[in-house]
């Protein structure tokens, strides 16, 4: 194992793990998918990856979503667990609300949002990497953000109501 792989791992793995956790909502599945993405990258060869970070996100996301349909029970459990919100910590609560809202989006919208805002990919890159028509990336993103905003506001209101 060369230093290049260690460097790639150290650079990309933390970001990939968080992205997949945000998309899937399950730490174990995120870990499995992230590790699998690196194994596949290793098989493919570092010199054949044009943008390793984006490549890992695409493969990891695909891996994550491939098993997602079979895991609805777990999703329900995840939702039931909720997020711990220490009293008086609005910023943390806000983040938890945002993540909770993100999890209510469809898989595709959630992936596009993470790719755009967490990975900073352009519309064209998202379209090319995730095989989405270039014209629909913006619309998908706008639609997702609008729903996020509504869900986020609703979450904050609900949180305020139960205090």
């Amino acid at each position, binding site marked *: *194992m060369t230093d290049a792989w260690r460097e790639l791992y150290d650079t990309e793995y933390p970001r990939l793990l968080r992205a997949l956790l945000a998309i899937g909502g399950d730490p174990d599945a995120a870990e499995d998918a992230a590790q699998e993405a690196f194994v596949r990258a290793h098989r493919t060869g570092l010199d054949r990856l044009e943008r390793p970070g984006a490549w890992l996100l695409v493969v990891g996301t695909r891996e994550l979503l491939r098993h997602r349909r079979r895991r609805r029970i777990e999703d329900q459990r995840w939702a039931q667990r909720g997020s711990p919100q220490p009293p008086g910590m609005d910023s943390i609560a806000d983040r938890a609300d945002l993540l909770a809202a993100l999890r209510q989006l469809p898989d595709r919208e959630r992936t596009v949002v993470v790719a755009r805002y967490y990975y900073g990919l352009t519309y064209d890159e998202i379209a090319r990497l995730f095989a989405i028509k270039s014209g629909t990336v913006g619309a998908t993103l706008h639609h997702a953000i609008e729903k996020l905003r509504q869900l986020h506001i609703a979450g904050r209101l609900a949180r305020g109501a139960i205090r």
Partner: protein
Amino acid sequence: MTDERDDEMLGRALSRAIETQDVSETAFERSRVAMPKPNVGLFIFQRVGGAAAVLVFGALLASWIMSRPALQPVAASETPAASAIAAGATATPVATTTPQPVAIDHDVIYVARIGLPPVSFRAPLASNFGREQRIAAHITALRALRPDSWPPDTRNFLWGNTFQGGVSVTISGELATVDLLLEDKPWSVGETGAATGILQQLVYTATEEPGIRAVLFTHDRGQQMRIGDVAITQPLTRENVFGYKPVDPRLIGEEFPLACTAAPCPTGATKLTASQSVDVVGRGVTRFTIQIDGALPPSFGISPLKADTPSTAWAGKYVLRIDVAGTEVKPGLELVERTPLRAIRSSVDGGRTTYELAMDDLRPWRVVTLSNPYRVVIDFGGYVTSVSDSIAVYAPVPGDPPMRQFAVRGLASVFEASVSWRLRDSTQRVVANGVTTASIGTSRQWGTFEFNVAVPSSAAPGDMWLEVYSASPKDGSDLGLVRVQLKVG
């Protein structure tokens, strides 16, 4: 324009939220890509036969429980120093105002120890699971126990291995049949001790379910399972896989005499004080001690019993019952939860005390009586290759750092208390030998022995084997031979 700026602000907030998620990162060294053979860790949720519900539910819940922070070792092997502290803390029941559990915790899975039987690791499930679901979930949980969660000195050979989920379980009486989804791929057993470890982890974890004493493992809808060179052709109990020579299964009790060995002999009411330790007197050795203050009772009795029935829910697979005349100072139930000793229950009736030790399996035990103060000591297990039916070497053990002088400690039950030893070098040439005397000879009780070994200066550093045995009074052959592999510096 305003909308776009709002979108970007929300996007940045979301990005921060994602970045600040609490995640458990796997270090590069433990990542799949850094392994010699990157294992394709597919998270498989395929259905197997008619047990689909059990399979999927078990896999899902196992994954869920492994993400919970409540996972904690309950029987981890520890360094002697650490375990000494733990033993001190648990030797005496501590008074508390919170309700105490009244039965042992079966929500555990098992991790492997090289050269020793596996030890339990807490993996709680939801309380409304059925028996099959519990077995399926616990087996599935094994594959998800990550290296950073392994207790010290243990390994989880199912991590990163072929099995990635998919369990079908059926139960008939005391037998569970467990079918694993392996997609016809072989187990990875390249690591030292992997095949034995996998087998032990699977059997111990499946039979943790109350009432299940044996388990038959198959794969991919009833095919015969093979783990390395081991073909699983029949149901296995814990005693089939723990590595020791099996104890007599007839479970016949014994009465042991007690005698005052030095005047003045103690008098007065007999008070008994029990304590226990795990991994303190020797690696893998569990010790139960009853200290006797006051007049010595003439004898005590020990009898092993099959447990694990609905009426013994507090207990493990077996109960070792000890009856002594005298009064235990703190009778009651103490949950120990350290493999193989799960709990100690003591009760006093008519001036006699009965101790019941809830045990995970029927591994070999040895009875010793010590004086000053008088104590009844029962030792269980030990390093598998260091224990025979008449010799048990507690120190040194394989894996000790290289040395040229060392003390040998252990127990023996041998003819005329004569314990022989020799040291062989890597060519099997004897470079040193000797004879020592145990505290007592052939008896139903064992005697203690201790002697020092100095490796001759002519012996080159490297692997050596310490052999401890007794010479047969008939023909001088080795009886009860144990071989301890050591490094000489």
